C-alpha cells in the first residue's frame, strides 16, 4: 500500500481478512468464569438462610410460631421461649436510638450540606466518618466504662446499675449517626442548585430555602437515611449487649427508659456459646435469628424502594427541564412532604394508641387496638383539609403524650398531667410568637441551633477518642504489646490477640478479595440487566443487610458444628469473608462504573477484546477506588466481634499458632472478654481498646489517603 508499511515487520501486517481466525477470544470464556464466581454470593446467602431455617424449623414444631412470637416469657432453663420481650426490647432500643440520632444526624447533615463553608465541610465530613470506623465492641466498652457511670450520676434514683434501655439507645444512636449523616447529606447535595437559586431569587433567606425547598426535596433521601440507620441499629450486637442489662422483660410502663431490656441480637450472642446443639433451645435461637433477619430485610427493603424513587426524581434530565417542569416538580415535592408529614402523624397516633392501651391490656391486643385506631384516622384523613386541620391538634396531642411519658418517670400521675399541660400551653403560646419573628432572626436562630448540634456531635466524638487515647496510652508498653496475658487478663500483654487479629484479617482477605473483586468486575462490565443478574444483586443486598451476629450463628452451625471444624482460624476467616464480601463487591463495582466509557471505547477501537480492555485499561483506572474499598472492608473485619465469637475466638492462647485449624485470640473479643468478665482490668481494657482503635482507624486513614491520591491524579 505504501512504502513504509512494508518495512514494518511482519507482526502488524494485515491478514487480508476480517473473518474469524484462530486467535483465541477470551471474552466468552471469561464472561462465564466471572459469572460463576459472582454466583458465589447467591450460594452463600442461600446456605445462610437454609441453615437458619433448617435449624429453626424444629422450634416451629416444638414451640409453635404463634406461641414463640407472642409469648411473654423467655426462660431457657424451663424451656420457655416467648420472644415478645426480645422483640419489644429490640424495637424499643432502636426507637430510642433513632430519637436520639435523628435530630443530631439531620442537624449535622443540614449544617454540613447547606451552612458550612467548603473548607469546614471538608474537615467535618471525614470526622463524621470516624464514627463509622470505631468498632462496635469499642462503643460497648466505652458505654460500660464511661456512659453508664455518667448516667448513674445523673439519675441516681432511677438507675441502680446504670445498664438500661437509655444507655443502649444512646450508644446505638451514636453508632447510627454516620449512616444518617452521610446518606441524608448526599440526598441534600443531590438537590439541583437551580432549586436553591430559584428560591433565593425570590428573596428567601438561606434558612427558608433550606427548610422549604432543600429539605422537602430531599425528604425521601432523608427518610431512607433514617431507615438505614434503624437497620444498622437493629442488627447491632456487641455494643447493645454490653450496656442494656440483658433482662428479658417488657419495661413497665412501656416507656420507662430506665428499665433494663434485652435485644434479639444480645440473646443470640449471650446464649449461643452455651447451648447444646440440637436442643430446643438451640433451635429456638435460630428461629430468633430468622425473626431478626426478616425484620432487618423488611427495613432495608423499604429504604431501597425509597432511595430508588428519589433517584428517579432527580434523574439526569433535570438540566433539560424547562421552568414550567420545575414548578410542577415543586408541587410534587410539596405533595411528598405532605405525605411524609401525614405518615409521621399516623406513626405518632399508632405509637400513642399502643402506649395507652398497653397500660391496660397485653401487647398483642394493644397492637390490634393501635392498628384499628390508625385505620379509623386514615379514613378520616382521606381529605387533605381534614388532615391539615387535624395535623396541628395531633401534634399537640403527641406533645402532650410524650411530655406525660417523660415526666411520669420522675413524678406521680397527677403532677405529670400538670407538667404536660404546661408544656402544651407553652407550645401554644410560643408557636405564633415564633412565626412573627423576622426572617433574618429566624435564620440566625436556626443556624445557631445547627451549629450547636454539630458541636454536640463533635464533642461526643472527641470525648470517646480522648477518653480511650488518654487512658489507653499509659497501658501501652513493650510488655503489653509483645507479652502474653497473665492473671486471667489482669496483667501481661495482648500479643496473641494482636497476632490473631492480623491472622484473621489476612485470611479473610485471601477469601474475600478474589471473590469480591471478580464479582464486582462481572457486575460492572459483563452483566446485562437479566433476571439472573438481578438475583445476584438481590443476594448481595441481603448479604449486606444481614446482621453480623447472624453470620456468626451461620459460621457456628455450618462450619464449627456441621462440618466439624471446631473453633478455628479458618472458620472465623470464612465467616468474616462472607460478611465483608458485599462491601468489596459494591465498592469495586462503583469504582469500575466510575471509569468513563470513552476509555473503554478507545481501547476497543484499537481492536482490544473486552477482557483486555477490562484488565489493562478499566481496572488500572479504577484501582484507587477498588483499593479504598478493600482497605475499608479490612478495617471492618478487624473490628468485628460477633462473627468470630462463636467460630474462632478464644479467651486465652499460650502460644501463637499458624495452623488454620487452631482457634485464635483476637483484639475485639479480648476487649469484650476483659470488659465483661474481668473486673479490675480497666487498664488492660483501655490498652486493648486503644490498640484496636489505632489499628482500625489506621486502615480508614489509609483508605481515605488512597482515595484522595487517586482522585487528585486522575481527572476525567
Amino acid at each position, binding site marked *: *500500500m*505504501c512504502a*513504509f*508499511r512494508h518495512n*514494518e*515487520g511482519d*507482526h*502488524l501486517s*494485515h*491478514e*487480508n*481478512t*476480517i*473473518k*474469524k*481466525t484462530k*486467535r483465541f*477470544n477470551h471474552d466468552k470464556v471469561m464472561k462465564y468464569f466471572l459469572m460463576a464466581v459472582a454466583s458465589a454470593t447467591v450460594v452463600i446467602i442461600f446456605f445462610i438462610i437454609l441453615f437458619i431455617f433448617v435449624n429453626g424449623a424444629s422450634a416451629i414444631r416444638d414451640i409453635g410460631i404463634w406461641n414463640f412470637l407472642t409469648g411473654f416469657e423467655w426462660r431457657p432453663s424451663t424451656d420457655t421461649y416467648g420472644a415478645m420481650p426480645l422483640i419489644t426490647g429490640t424495637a424499643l432500643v432502636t426507637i430510642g436510638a433513632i430519637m436520639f440520632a435523628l435530630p443530631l444526624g439531620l442537624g449535622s447533615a443540614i449544617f454540613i450540606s447547606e451552612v458550612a463553608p467548603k473548607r469546614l465541610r471538608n474537615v467535618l465530613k471525614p470526622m463524621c466518618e470516624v464514627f463509622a470506623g470505631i468498632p462496635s465492641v469499642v462503643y460497648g466498652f466505652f458505654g460500660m466504662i464511661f456512659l453508664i457511670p455518667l448516667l448513674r450520676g445523673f439519675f441516681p434514683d432511677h438507675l441502680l446499675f446504670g445498664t438500661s434501655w437509655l444507655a443502649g439507645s444512646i450508644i446505638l444512636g451514636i453508632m447510627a449517626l454516620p449512616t444518617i449523616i452521610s446518606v441524608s447529606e448526599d440526598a441534600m447535595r443531590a438537590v439541583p442548585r437551580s432549586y436553591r437559586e430559584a428560591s433565593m431569587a425570590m428573596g428567601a433567606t438561606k434558612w427558608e430555602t433550606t427548610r422549604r425547598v432543600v429539605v422537602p426535596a430531599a425528604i425521601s433521601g432523608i427518610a431512607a437515611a433514617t431507615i438505614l440507620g434503624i437497620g444498622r441499629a437493629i442488627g447491632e450486637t456487641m455494643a447493645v449487649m454490653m450496656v442494656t442489662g440483658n433482662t428479658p422483660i417488657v419495661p413497665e410502663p412501656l416507656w420507662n427508659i430506665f428499665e433494663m431490656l434485652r435485644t434479639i441480637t444480645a440473646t443470640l450472642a449471650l446464649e449461643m456459646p452455651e447451648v447444646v446443639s440440637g436442643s430446643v433451645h438451640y433451635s429456638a435461637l435460630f428461629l430468633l435469628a430468622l425473626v431478626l433477619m426478616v425484620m432487618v430485610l423488611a427495613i432495608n427493603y423499604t429504604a431501597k424502594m425509597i432511595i430508588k424513587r428519589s433517584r428517579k426524581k432527580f434523574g439526569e434530565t433535570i438540566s433539560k427541564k424547562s421552568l414550567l417542569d420545575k414548578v410542577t416538580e415543586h408541587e410534587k415535592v410539596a405533595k411528598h412532604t405532605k405525605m411524609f408529614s401525614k405518615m409521621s402523624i399516623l406513626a405518632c397516633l399508632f405509637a400513642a394508641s399502643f402506649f395507652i392501651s398497653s397500660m391496660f391490656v397485653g401487647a398483642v391486643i394493644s397492637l390490634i387496638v393501635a392498628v384499628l385506631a390508625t385505620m379509623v384516622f386514615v379514613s378520616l384523613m382521606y381529605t387533605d383539609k381534614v388532615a391539615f386541620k387535624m395535623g396541628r391538634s395531633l401534634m399537640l396531642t403527641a406533645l402532650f403524650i410524650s411530655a406525660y411519658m417523660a415526666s411520669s418517670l420522675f413524678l406521680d400521675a397527677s403532677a405529670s398531667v400538670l407538667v404536660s399541660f404546661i408544656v402544651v400551653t407553652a407550645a401554644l403560646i410560643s408557636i405564633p410568637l415564633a412565626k412573627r419573628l423576622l426572617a433574618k432572626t429566624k435564620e440566625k436562630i436556626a443556624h445557631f441551633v445547627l451549629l450547636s448540634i454539630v458541636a454536640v456531635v463533635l464533642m461526643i466524638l472527641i470525648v470517646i477518642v480522648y477518653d480511650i487515647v488518654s487512658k489507653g496510652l499509659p497501658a501501652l508498653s513493650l510488655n503489653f504489646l509483645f507479652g502474653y496475658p497473665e492473671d486471667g487478663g489482669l496483667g501481661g500483654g495482648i500479643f496473641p490477640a494482636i497476632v490473631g487479629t492480623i491472622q484473621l484479617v489476612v485470611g479473610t482477605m485471601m477469601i474475600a478479595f478474589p471473590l469480591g473483586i471478580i464479582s464486582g468486575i462481572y457486575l460492572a462490565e459483563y452483566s*446485562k440487566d437479566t433476571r439472573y443478574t438481578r438475583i445476584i444483586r438481590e443476594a448481595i443486598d441481603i448479604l449486606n443487610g444481614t446482621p453480623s451476629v447472624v453470620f456468626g450463628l451461620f459460621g457456628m452451625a455450618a462450619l464449627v458444628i456441621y462440618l466439624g471444624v471446631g473453633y478455628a482460624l479458618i472458620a472465623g476467616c470464612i465467616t468474616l469473608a462472607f460478611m465483608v464480601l458485599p462491601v468489596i463487591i459494591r465498592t469495586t463495582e462503583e469504582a469500575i462504573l466510575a471509569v*468513563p*466509557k*470513552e*476509555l*473503554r*471505547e*478507545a*481501547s*476497543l*477501537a*484499537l*481492536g*482490544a*477484546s473486552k477482557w*483486555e480492555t477490562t484488565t*489493562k*485499561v478499566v481496572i*488500572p*483506572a479504577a484501582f484507587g477506588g477498588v483499593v479504598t474499598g478493600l482497605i475499608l472492608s479490612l478495617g471492618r473485619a478487624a473490628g468485628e466481634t460477633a462473627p468470630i465469637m462463636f467460630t474462632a475466638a478464644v479467651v486465652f492462647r499460650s502460644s501463637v499458632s499458624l495452623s488454620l485449624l487452631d482457634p485464635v485470640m483476637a483484639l475485639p473479643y479480648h476487649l469484650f472478654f476483659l470488659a465483661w468478665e474481668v473486673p479490675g482490668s480497666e487498664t488492660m481494657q483501655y490498652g486493648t481498646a486503644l490498640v484496636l482503635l489505632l489499628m482500625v482507624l489506621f486502615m480508614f486513614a489509609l483508605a481515605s489517603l488512597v482515595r484522595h491520591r487517586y482522585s487528585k*491524579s*486522575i*481527572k476525567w
Partner: protein
Amino acid sequence: MDIVGFNLWYGEKQALFDVGMNVRKNKITALIGPSGCGKSTLIRCMNRMNDLIDGCRVEGSMFFQGQDIYGKDTDVMALRKRIGMIFQKPNPFPMSIRDNITYGPRIHGITKQSELDEIMERSLKQAALWDEVHDRLEQSALSLSGGQQQRLCIARTLSINPEVILMDEPTSALDPIATAKIEDLAISLEKDYTVVIVTHNMQQAARISDYTGFMYMGKMIEFDDTEKIFNKPSEDLTERYITGRFG
C-alpha cells in the same frame, strides 16, 4: 468501503434510513449535517462501535474490501484493528505517554522492546507530536494539553497501523491553532491512509476532504465530490445547509 441500504435502530427509534455511500481508498471523506442527523451513528457503525450500545440493531450491508462488516463470521477485533477511530473528546488512557502508544501493539502481540520503541517513535512523528513529547515519554498523558492529547490519540490509533481512520469531530474540543494542526495532520495522513471525518465546520470539510456526504434526519441526502457539493450541489437541502440558510 461500500455502504448499501443501511438502516439502524436505537431500540424503537430509527436513526439511519437507507444510507448508501462509498469511501475511497487513500482519500478523505467528510460527513456533514446538522446536529442529531446521525453522523456519529453512521461513522461508529463502520467499525462496529455501536455493538456496545444496548438495543442497537442494524439492517443492510457495509462492505470492507469486499467482506461484509456485519457478516456472521466477522471478527470484530480484527476489523477494529484495520479500521481505527478518533473520538470527539480526547480520551488518552490514564497512563504514561509511552504506554498509551504501545498499548495497541502490545494487544496485538508485539512484545519486543526495540520494536515497540520504533512503533512509538514512528507514530508520534506521524502525529506531529514527537518533537513536543520525546523528552517526557514517561509522564502521564493527562498532563498534555487538549490539542496534544488529541494528537496523542491519533498517534495511538496509528500505532496499530490501520487502513482506515474514522474521526468523529476530532477538533470540536480544540482551539483554532490545535485545530489547524490536526487538519494538517489529516491531510498528511491521506497518502497512506483512508480517512473518514465527521465535522460541523464547513470550511474544514471544504479544505481537507475529497468527498463529502451531507446527511439530514438520518438520511444521506447527497454524496459527491467535495468540489461539487460546495459549488453546485444538486439538492436544494444541501445548498441551503451549505450557505447557512437552514431551518
